[in-house]
């Protein structure tokens, strides 16, 4: 019966412990709604047929009212029903608002347009929340910029992430599986792309993930690697059940498949491969150095040396990011060696070169000149917060004339993204978790 009603009413799977109870109340309210609206209309139509005017109007019979007890009975009954629903709904609400004492805490930070999850033992993940099944998880949410809302339809929970304060939500997943997270509070251009996933692992897998998370979720949990067509909901052999999301990662993906300039292609590639999750194009500080004004700038390294950000250094930073790390940024970037084609590498370089001049910023020294030690390049920690700009700003960036796209570079295949899917977590090691500052002040990592 539960399954039948759930299917008829198009409700998602009941993956959390509270979902089924909420759905029972849902069934009762919605079925009453459908029945009530239909019944009152049918009664009205019956009156219309029964009492339609025949011939000339008679004078009204002043006593022709339905009995008072009927109306009082119906209204009183309805009020009692509403109050009953309110009592049940309020009790359930209190239950889903108050986390159990022993719940596993996870800090959730939202920003335009991504979700970051931080565990008390020092791990970070981006866009994927790993949790053990059969154990309550308490989320403490905040936002770095505007209001977002953490929504997992399969769990029947939703909680706004508000900048400047912490809010709490909790859930307990019943079975291992993958569940879609969506942002439910409008937060700007890419609001609809601000999705993530909850991966519920069997407790022993979760323990293994915790132990091995430091390097790479893919290697420590090979059986999690899933594939298949978009919208797939059946269990993938060897994988976890759940929808395989083909979330577009940037608005640029919506662009028509006409020949693109290298700069446009670079923007697209940067979105598809997840570069823009950490790097910005408008000079605002984020997890990694901004690309605005980067090319040709003198980059201070973590070792104290300085290097000129030319093609060689930028390419090296893509393939072996930790070899010469930009001072002031955490060592979190994964290597893209083998994951990015030469054409894509070139496109990203062209993109970075195209945004050397950013309004309000001194132009970077021309490449080839002797590097000078100036102020720290764009994006260094501690600069004043820069308001997020819409993606369309990218198109205003002075770009070199369109170059025809070499055929062999092509566009990334629509739908599925190059391997590995950029949705896999970028695992951050080593640094202890400090709940991120609520306001958007500077870099996110300590």
């Amino acid at each position, binding site marked *: 019966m539960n399954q039948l009603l759930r299917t008829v009413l198009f409700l998602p799977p009941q993956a959390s412990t509270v979902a089924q109870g909420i759905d029972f109340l849902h069934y009762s309210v919605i079925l009453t709604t459908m029945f009530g609206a239909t019944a009152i209309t049918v009664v*009205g139509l019956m009156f219309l047929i029964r009492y339609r005017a025949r011939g000339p109007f008679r004078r009204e019979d002043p006593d022709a009212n339905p009995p008072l007890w009927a109306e009082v009975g119906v209204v009183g009954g309805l009020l009692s029903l509403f109050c009953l629903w309110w009592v049940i709904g309020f009790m359930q609400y209190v239950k889903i608002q108050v986390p159990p004492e022993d719940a596993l805490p996870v800090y959730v930070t939202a920003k335009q347009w991504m979700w970051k999850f931080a565990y008390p033992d020092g791990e970070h993940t981006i866009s994927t929340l790993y949790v053990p099944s059969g154990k309550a998880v308490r989320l403490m949410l905040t936002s770095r910029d505007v209001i977002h809302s953490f929504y997992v339809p399969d769990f029947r929970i939703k909680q706004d992430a508000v900048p400047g304060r912490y809010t709490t939500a909790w859930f307990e997943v019943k079975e291992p599986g993958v569940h879609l997270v969506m942002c439910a509070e409008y937060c700007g*251009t890419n609001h609809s792309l601000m999705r993530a996933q909850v991966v519920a692992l069997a407790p022993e897998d979760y323990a293994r993930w915790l132990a091995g998370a430091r390097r790479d979720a893919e290697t420590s949990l090979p059986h999690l690697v899933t594939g298949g067509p978009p919208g797939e909901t059946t269990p993938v052999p060897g994988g976890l059940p759940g929808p395989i999301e083909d979330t577009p990662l940037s608005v640029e993906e919506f*662009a028509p498949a006409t020949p693109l300039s290298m700069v446009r292609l670079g923007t697209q590639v940067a979105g598809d491969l997840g570069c823009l999750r950490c790097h910005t194009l408008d000079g605002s500080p984020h997890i990694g150095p901004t690309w605005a004004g980067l090319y040709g700038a003198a980059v201070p390294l973590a070792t104290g040396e300085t290097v000129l950000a030319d093609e060689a250094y930028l390419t090296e930073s893509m393939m072996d990011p930790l070899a010469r790390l930009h001072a002031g940024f955490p060592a979190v970037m994964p290597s893209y060696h083998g994951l990015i084609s030469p054409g894509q590498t070139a496109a990203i370089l062209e993109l970075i070169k195209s945004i050397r001049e950013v309004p309000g910023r001194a132009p970077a020294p021309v490449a080839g000149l002797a590097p000078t030690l100036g102020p720290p390049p764009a994006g260094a920690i501690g600069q004043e917060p820069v308001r997020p700009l819409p*993606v369309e700003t990218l198109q205003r960036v002075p770009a070199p004339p369109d170059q025809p796209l070499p055929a062999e570079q092509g566009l990334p295949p629509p739908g599925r993204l190059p391997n590995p899917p950029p949705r896999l977590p970028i695992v951050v090691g080593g640094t202890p978790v400090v709940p991120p500052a609520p306001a958007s002040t500077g870099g996110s990592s300590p």
Partner: protein
Amino acid sequence: MTAAPTETAPPLPDGPESEPSYLAVESGLWSWLNTRDHKRIALMFYVTVLGTFLLGGTFALALRTELLTPRRTIMDAMTYNRMFTLHGVTMVWLFLIPSIPTVFGNFILPIQLGAKDLAFPKLNLVSFYMFLLGLATTVGGMLAGGTDTGWTFYPPYSDLTPTRLVPVLLGIFILGISTILTGVNFVATTHMLRARGMRWSQIPLFVWTIYGTSIIMLLATPVLGMSLLLVGLDHGLGLGIFDPAVGGDPVLFEHIFWFYSHPAVYIMILPAMGVISEVVPTFAHRRPASYTAIAASTLGIAFVGFFTWGHHMFVAGISTYDAGVFGILSMFVAIFSAIKVFTWTATLYKGQIVFSTPLLYFFAFLFLFVFGGMTGVAVATQSLDVHWHDTYFVVAHFHFIMVGGSVTAFLAAAHYWFPKMFGRMYSERVGLLSASAVFLGFVLTFLPQFLLGNMGMPRRYYSYPAQFQWLHVLSTGGAYLLAGALLLTFTNLALALKWGEKAPANPWGSRSFEWLTPSPPPKHNFRGAPNLDYSPYDYTMTDEEAHARAGQ
């Protein structure tokens, strides 16, 4: 079928002794632009809000077209975000809030009270020009690029958005002034200009709802002005009242915004209930099952509506205790609405019902309003709202109330009072056809959106997971059907303006006071001061007896 009343209720002869109608008494553009006649001002509002309805509807069709596919269909994300904002702003402030009060309230309310005009005719004209100014400012802001915050303007996003927010806010602020002026006028008219003999317990039900609406306008609109002003200062000057980056509080905005915007829902729906309360007794040819119940529940909704705003914030981080209080208070609004619904239905009982286009709109209203209202109870139930909040379920819910309720009643009024306003009869056959098509198109558009919400589709999504697509396609198809049906409706009315049969003074055999005057009414509505010391729903009298008693 409409022939039945005219057989027994011959209209007052529109002989040569009658005064010229308000349409014929003067001519020339200036006689319209500088008029103080409430009927002419009502017509100017009519033309204006039909234009804004067309604008908002065009935005809606563009949005629905974009949602045909999970990714880009016809526009990019930024355009989409601006467009849903402008759709909301246009439909809420430029159409729904002014529609029934400024058009039918302006035209009908003074006549129903037996007055020559509103209490402050010049203020009425000022209100119209304030409306035009607000309209121009808002549309100018749209042309300058519009804004993308959603019609709710939640900070801190509205503080940070790079789009042009300020002209739109300013426009709405000016529209608010127009709303207040109109509200003052209606309240003053109801208090001061009732005809000789009209007691408070005999005021027509439409007047009661417009009166209740005006009270809400007067009390709530200043709060809207305040909140928009603060957001504008935040956005323009970086004042930061709602921006946590400088110590402000975004949740504070949600409180003051919904303190206006929830009562604003009743600004939009109460006049619709007033129209229905006139249509049902007229076509059932009997008095309402309970005048007191309808009038009292109107005031009940207007009052309780001020104490339910927190139900918009169940997942915003408010305390569970507050959520409980707001939840139960919201249930009372539903009970008052239920009382009205039962009273309307009971009014049909043992009536002498004439089936016609306005009555068909009543049946559409009945189903859609009960369905929409009951889903309102559903989202006021806290644990259910956690799943539904900010999903298409909420979108479907308020469109059932706003379109299924208010727009359906607006169309009912447009047909019901058409003979009175223009002195012509529309084609009943086309009217019935278009009303059925409006209902079907509406259901096809918004019923799938309930299912989308159940599945978990969040609102304001440009791109969406593929499993939602087929329901979106259904909804878009319905939207086109609805648009076609509305075009047919207004074409039917527009054609009747010129080619319609000449309307008698009282084509429906109604006992309400506006039907005592010729169609269209003369400039000062009645001959001399009418004596309206009887119930406007007294069907124990014949038409002749009513005219004699009123001295008309």
